[in-house]
């Protein structure tokens, strides 16, 4: 897992991940790029991350992938990221395509639901919590 301040250099990261596995005999490599769209007048997005729990979340996925002979990778931005650049990328390597296709789907969806990352719209000089697009994590409400 890699965290960067500001937008991601997607080509460098994907290229490096590919190079690292060049002799690993994986038959499938599936990258996913999350690009910030210009919508609702935003200048960009901004992110807070709670790294200790994100790391645990990621390591559970590493173990889940390993059990299927696969590898998962991810990188995410911290702080402000302008529109039309990338704040999140991930990838799966596996011996055959089916495992990688299914894993990238489950991995990205669980990332959206349970990775401890908070998103803010950057608009008119303000940093506004994207509450309407945010999802309570599994187990939310225990203190209510």
């Amino acid at each position: 897992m890699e965290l960067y301040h500001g937008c991601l250099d997607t080509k460098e990261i994907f290229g490096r991940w590919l190079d690292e596995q060049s002799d690993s005999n994986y038959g499938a490599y599936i990258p996913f790029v999350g690009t910030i769209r210009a919508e609702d007048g935003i200048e960009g997005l901004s992110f807070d991350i709670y790294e200790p729990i994100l790391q645990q979340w990621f390591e559970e996925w590493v173990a889940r992938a390993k059990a299927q002979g696969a590898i998962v990778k991810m990188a995410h931005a911290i702080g402000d990221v302008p529109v039309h650049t990338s704040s999140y990328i991930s990838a799966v390597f596996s011996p055959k395509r089916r495992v990688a296709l299914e894993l990238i789907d489950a991995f990205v969806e669980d990332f959206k639901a349970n990775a401890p990352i908070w998103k803010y719209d950057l608009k008119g000089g303000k940093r506004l919590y994207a509450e309407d697009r945010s999802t309570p994590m599994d187990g939310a409400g225990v203190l209510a």
Partner: protein
Amino acid sequence: MMIKVEFLGPIAREPMEMEATTLAEVSAKLKADERLAGWLEKCAVALNDTMVTDLTTPLQAGDRVSLLPPVCGG
């Protein structure tokens, strides 16, 4: 015993210390704080960076309870 409660992301509140021996006691004290109304229902909870869902979870002196509001990575 004294434990610490921290509020992550957009809750934007300073950490607080309180006397509590279970998460249920933490819950009761936080519910009394009007500024947290609306957050408790939506927040997941971690104890010393491990997610917890059981209110009877016992606490030790120096424990750190974290409130994690709704997330949206990517």
